[in-house]
């Protein structure tokens, strides 16, 4: 059996200054691989732009939508990205409240993922509108004509919920980053210096600031959790509130939330491995943390599977012929390959996470996490499309496949997300420095190690926990990294 020493969440002998150095290094001049990734993302975005410009010019028919396939991949991918956004909140807010401190090295990029996937998701309802130029009519803006949006419509709730969630999660990401931005400020030159000086809001790292910071962070976390749950419940009500067979399912809100956390966790694993590889962050993104994330994903996968079965059972034992027909068509109709693909990726593949050996094997985890996300994307598609192809009215039964325009825009959305994320990791610290330091300190206390008086104040031999000078109580006053 492997040595347990190897699989610690974080090495407690890590120097604080070393943490600063490692993370700040990730923001320095990018290597070749970075530029290649940026080029790939831009290439994908170009596809989407071509598709969207064409569709804007000629109409929605370009997307091969028809009667009755009024919605298709756009809405499915919209739900997919909204779902992706839930993982950041799970890691940063829910696990924060539950005092699971292993989240600390990885929550920053998860939160960035939340914000950026929301920014991607928000594009899709606009792209899918027939008259894109009038999209602001969904908002209750003040107008002389006295026309309000229809507050009974789930699409309006969507607009509110998503914009609220986007604002709050961006704010949460920013607030949690302030001490780190101060560290960056202390070490930056040129335009970066100006940027971080403005963003760190005069953070000096004194007692009062830390106290207020902690309180704000906790309040934001408490605010964000119900918000995250409500956002995906509201997105699910786009379907659950309708009367269509296969859509008006009572269990949809929890089902969507579970699916959201699921795909988000899977995406975290993917990005975890990529970041670990690109930035050589083996010290922070440890195998032990990966394992814990994998366990969490496995648990959520089982919840999702259970809710899936509930849905099938309630349809099966219900007395709606149309509902049954849609369900059977999912099992054996023209969309069956995708449906079974979803079941395979979503309910069978996660069992790989049950084995310790595979949980610790990075390539396996990479493949598994990507498969899980493909499964979750298929799930959203299988929610939207079979119902449209097979609703109540027999004359409107039709099977339609999406055109290149839809595929281009869906692909482009991945490029867009990737580009935002790539910019983020170079401009902002993608690993929370101050929380890694806290974690090191706590672990050291847990390990009952001898803490020398100097170490107790400043175990990093120079660096303070956040940016700025250390708290007034700390004797050893030192500048940033240079002190070590």
């Amino acid at each position, binding site marked *: 059996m492997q040595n347990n020493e190897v699989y610690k969440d974080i090495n407690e002998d890590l120097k604080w200054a070393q943490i600063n150095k490692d993370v700040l290094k990730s923001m320095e001049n990018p290597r070749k691989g970075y530029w290649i990734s940026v080029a790939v993302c831009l290439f994908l975005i170009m596809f989407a732009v071509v598709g969207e410009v064409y569709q804007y010019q000629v109409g929605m028919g370009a997307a091969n939508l028809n009667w009755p396939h009024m919605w298709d991949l756009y809405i499915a991918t919209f739900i997919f990205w909204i779902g992706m956004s839930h993982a950041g909140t799970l890691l940063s807010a829910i696990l924060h409240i539950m005092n699971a401190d292993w989240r600390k090295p990885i929550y920053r990029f998860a939160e960035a993922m939340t914000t950026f996937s929301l920014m991607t998701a928000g594009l899709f309802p606009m792209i899918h*509108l*027939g008259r894109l130029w009038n999209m602001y009519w969904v908002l209750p803006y003040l107008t002389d004509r006295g026309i309000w949006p229809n507050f009974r419509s789930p*699409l309006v709730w969507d607009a509110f919920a998503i914009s609220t969630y986007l604002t709050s999660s961006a704010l949460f990401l920013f607030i949690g980053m302030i001490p780190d931005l101060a560290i960056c400020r202390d070490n930056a030159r040129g335009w970066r210096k100006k940027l971080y000086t403005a963003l760190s809001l005069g953070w000096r790292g004194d007692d009062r600031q830390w106290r207020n910071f902690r309180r704000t962070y906790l309040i934001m976390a408490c605010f964000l959790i119900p918000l995250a749950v409500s956002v995906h419940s509201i997105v699910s009500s786009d379907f659950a509130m309708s009367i269509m067979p296969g859509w008006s399912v009572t269990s949809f809100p929890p089902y969507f939330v579970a699916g959201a956390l699921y795909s988000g966790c899977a995406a975290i694993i993917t990005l975890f491995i990529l970041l670990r590889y690109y930035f050589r962050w083996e010290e922070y993104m440890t195998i032990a943390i990966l394992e814990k994330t994998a366990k969490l994903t496995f648990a959520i996968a089982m919840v999702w599977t259970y809710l899936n079965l509930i849905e099938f059972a309630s349809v099966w034992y219900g007395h709606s012929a149309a509902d049954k027909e849609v369900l059977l068509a999912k099992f054996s109709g023209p969309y069956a390959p995708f449906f079974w693909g979803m079941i395979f990726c979503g309910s069978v593949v996660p069992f790989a996470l049950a084995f310790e050996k595979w949980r610790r094997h990075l390539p396996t985890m990479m493949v598994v996490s990507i498969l899980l996300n493909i499964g979750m994307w298929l799930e959203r598609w299988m929610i939207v499309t079979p119902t449209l192809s097979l609703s109540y009215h027999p004359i409107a039964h039709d099977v339609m496949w999406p055109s290149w325009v839809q595929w281009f825009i869906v692909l482009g959305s991945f490029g867009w997300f990737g580009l935002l994320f790539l910019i983020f990791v170079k401009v902002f610290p993608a690993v929370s420095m101050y929380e890694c330091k806290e974690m090191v300190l706590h672990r050291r206390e847990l390990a009952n190690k001898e803490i020398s008086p100097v170490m107790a104040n400043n175990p990093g031999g120079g660096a303070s926990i956040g940016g700025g000078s250390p708290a007034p109580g700390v004797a050893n006053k030192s500048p940033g990294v240079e002190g070590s």
Partner: protein
Amino acid sequence: MSLSNLIDDWSRYRKGREEGGFHDYEHMWGMSIDLNKCIGCNACSVACYAENNLAVVGKEKFEKGQGMHWLRLERYWDEPDLGEERTTEFQQHGASFLPMMCQQCNAATCEPVCPVAATYHTPDGLNAQVYNRCIGSRYCSNNCPYRLRYFNFWSYYEDSWPAPLQMQLNPDISVRDKGVMEKCTFCVQRIRTVKDTARMEDRKVRDGEVQTACSQTCPTGAIEFGDMLGMYDPETGVAETKVTRMWRKHQVEFGKTKQNKQTPDMRGYRVFEFLNTDPCVMYLDRVREV
């Protein structure tokens, strides 16, 4: 723009709901369609194209399911149970036809889901579609169990009416461009004209005065159109019309998810009544010898 407007509207809406919903109505337009009389000639559909400036999308787009036929004639083959050996002759009884136009549901499923309130219930009991307000989210069509809403997937104007065909467009109704949802309006422009005339002459709208294009065109008179307010509330003093008499005769009532018919010769039904959409179109079942 004011909050008081919103509150006023809301209280009016609540009041209407609690009192049964239709008290402020001047009219309530409805239909009765006798499938015994329908011969499936499609004249109603053609008339609808002419009256309502419907785009003619061409064979290719129609096959793709992007047609704009507000009134579609559905064809169903009879398949009587004649035993194993004669199943190939199932078409011997011919087809039955079902002209489907917007059912103008009283509890329309399309209305609450529109994010910008582009579809709403008029005081005439119509399910209106405001083209200018529509942003094309297409949720209404997805939530219509009858699938009676059609979307302008392309800009059809130039293809449908190459010059000088645009001269024959009906000036009373707009031509819709791409990105807008549309559907049968019960020829709302005709209703407006008749109502205006009646108001000028200071009288009530007479029964049969408003004719939709389809009912006017139907060679067998299968489609009856008229005011049904008397049907809903006899105390308002609205006279019986041909349509209300038809509904009463076949014992179809509003607000029910299932009609109890006493004798088999009462043929009235509404499509998908069990969904509680409360449509304003009654069909009379086809009777045939098998």
